[in-house]
């Protein structure tokens, strides 16, 4: 699957095979540009990584693509449905895990997944069955009846992810799904996502962890200062070196710290 995914000319027709098609999204907060016209094609069935330094505009881009933040310009299509023209149609196809967002954490884990399922309009029998399956898959059955507010950081990410899967979406948009997650839970999440992609689903994740993205994703886009610096398959983007080195090279990093000589024992 080597769809040419960069650059995408604006106004181009919906390329068959794109699960998420971001076109010229732009957003400024109080005059300060956060996202400066980002376009991106996420091929169906791909495991897409969105990497970039803090403040690059990853969260802003994903919020605009999922209907949480109204863009100043541009649009996003989920399997051909416009997120801002046909929000209900697009949202039905999409599972979203926003970053830095509270959960209804005074519900138990079981109640939270049930709630998400019912909000999506599923019938009770389906919700009950899927809630049980998801709790099992994320290894949360033992804590199903504890309040989410009492969960650890890793468990909280897992229950939020489970809630975003309950309506069987075709596309998953995950903002920092591995942040503050322990290695065991991370492996658990990764296995579920990989399995989901193998069965035909599409995942786009944002992350800081280059190593993880290189191992897990087949496509990657590098974002900095609200623009796409490179996008394509992981092999195309890293072009021989490691993704981390390529990333630092693209973004322009800071050398090793000097002036801490007193710290050298």
């Amino acid at each position, binding site marked *: 699957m080597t769809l040419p995914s960069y650059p995408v000319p604006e106004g181009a027709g919906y390329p068959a095979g794109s699960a998420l098609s971001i076109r010229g999204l732009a957003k400024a907060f109080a005059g300060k540009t956060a996202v400066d016209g980002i376009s991106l094609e996420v091929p169906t069935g791909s495991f897409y990584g969105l990497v970039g330094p803090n403040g690059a505009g990853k969260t802003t881009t994903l919020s605009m693509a*999922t*209907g*949480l*933040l*109204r863009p100043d310009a541009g649009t996003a299509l989920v399997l051909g449905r416009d997120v801002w023209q046909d*929000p*209900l149609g*697009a*949202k*039905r196809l*999409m599972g*979203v895990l*926003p970053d*830095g*967002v*509270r*959960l*209804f*954490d*005074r*519900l*138990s884990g*079981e*109640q939270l997944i*049930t*709630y*998400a399922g*019912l*909000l*999506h*309009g599923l*019938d*009770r029998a389906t*919700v009950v069955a899927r809630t049980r399956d998801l709790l099992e898959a994320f290894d949360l059955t*033992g*804590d199903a*009846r*504890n*309040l989410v*507010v*009492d969960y650890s950081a890793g468990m909280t990410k897992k229950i939020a992810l489970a*809630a*975003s899967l309950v*309506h069987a979406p075709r596309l998953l948009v995950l903002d920092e799904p591995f942040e503050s997650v322990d290695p065991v839970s991370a492996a658990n999440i990764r296995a579920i996502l990989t399995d989901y992609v193998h069965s035909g689903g599409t995942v786009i994740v944002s992350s800081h962890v280059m190593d993880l993205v290189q191992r897990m994703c087949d496509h990657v886009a590098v974002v900095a200062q609200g623009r796409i610096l490179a996008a394509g398959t992981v092999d195309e983007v890293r072009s021989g070196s490691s993704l981390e080195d390529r990333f630092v090279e693209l973004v322009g990093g800071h050398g090793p710290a000097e002036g801490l000589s007193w710290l050298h024992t």
Partner: protein
Amino acid sequence: MVAHLITLKLALLRNGLRRNVAQLVGLIVASLYGLGLLFLAVLGLILLRLVNAGIAGPIVVLGGSALLAGWTFAPILVSGVDLTLDPGRFAPYPIPLSRLLVGQALGGLIGVPGVCTTVALASTTVTWARDPLTFVAGVLGAALALGLCVVVSRLVASAVTDLATSRRFREGSRMVMMVPIVLLGPIVGLAIRGMETNLDAMRALAQVLAWTPFGAPLGVPAAVAEGHLPEAFVKLLIAAASLVLAAWAWSRALARALVTPASRASSGSRAGRRGLGPFGWMPASPGGAIAARALTYWVRDPRYGTALIIVPLVPVILFFSSAQQHQSNLFLLSGPLAAFLLAWSLATDVSYDSTAFSLHLTAGVRGRADRWGRALALMTFALPGAVVITLVPFAVSGRWDLLPGYLGLALGVLLSGSGLASVVSARFTVTVPLPGESPFKRPPGNTTQTFLVQIGGLVTLGLLVLPEIVLVAFSASTGQAGYGWVSLLVGIVLGSALFVLGITLGGMWLDRRGPEVYASLVRSG
């Protein structure tokens, strides 16, 4: 080290003020309030010098006991406010326990309450400047009282920081503490009337309190002034022993806090108790799910519970107010007022969600379902609640002829108010405590908008229920039951119509402006 801690406390205070104008205003208001009370207290204590010891004694003991009780319960109520010198934060530094102890004690006196308490207690020595021995006893008693105030409040603070990590306790205690605060007005009113009619009872209370750690320190000079030297000596022992005991317990608690910094211990022992709760029996639809979730939050989230706990107390408060002013009509308004409080609580519902509201947005919930669910959850208990509370004053006063009119008004206020609140909360978010914060915390933020929304809502609601108000006024002034029955009919029919209209309009608004509502929730927390 002690000086360091005090400097630190002052620096924290100053920096906090520099960052936050609202807090500065708060401090000024608190200072003015404190100064006002302090002025009255000091004046009173100086005047008490002129009356004989038999009268001055009980008053000073009662006042002192109330002061110490305030210091004792303040940490439970506002845990977190004055934990700037939280012992846990000093755990990483090599500081000897004894110095930390003294520094914390003195640090506790910095601030409006500490300064006011010190000045007020110092003024008691004026009251007892009668003869050398009484004056010395007065100084001793005041010093012991001040020490007890500080040490006991620190001890309680240490104890609750241990417990406060268990979330359930924190929430429970705050809700329980709400009851006496709400009832404080009526209690004070009652106490004043009690003082007028029953001085003996107050004197007896003071006598009992003087033998407890609360009243003993200030009971010492009172006993000396009346010439009961052995009694004074025993009270001195009680006060000193309490101080030593409290200090010892506090140092133990502090030592423990230093080796076990506060952790987010979970209370995992309750597993298996809960099932799906309301999710099991509410309709399996988006609206039903939202109702089930809202109902769960009404029970579990103390921010909602705090609003609820006032509602059943409304008739009690109005009963005392009307009894004091010989205005029985005020008491009859219990139902409509409770209905207003219940209905208006919907206006903050979305704000309480904070960013968790994103789930509704990403799931593509229709605005109408959102509005319906929240209102339905409220109605399950607000409707019967408002009816019962409306009945209370009539059951007490026996004026059943006026009941239909007031019931109509209460139902009208509840239904129209819920409809209005459904519209308002789809458009305006207000600043509320964030999930998990103390329900009593008033976060700084867009308070002007919050205030305008409240006032605007109140005025609009007044217009919406004007027909019911007029009909109730007619039925009360003419004494004709017919007006009352019409009011009941209008309350139900007009109220229901406005309720449905509000939900529909609010839903449409939410559909159009969902992302903007969410953006303002993100900004405030």
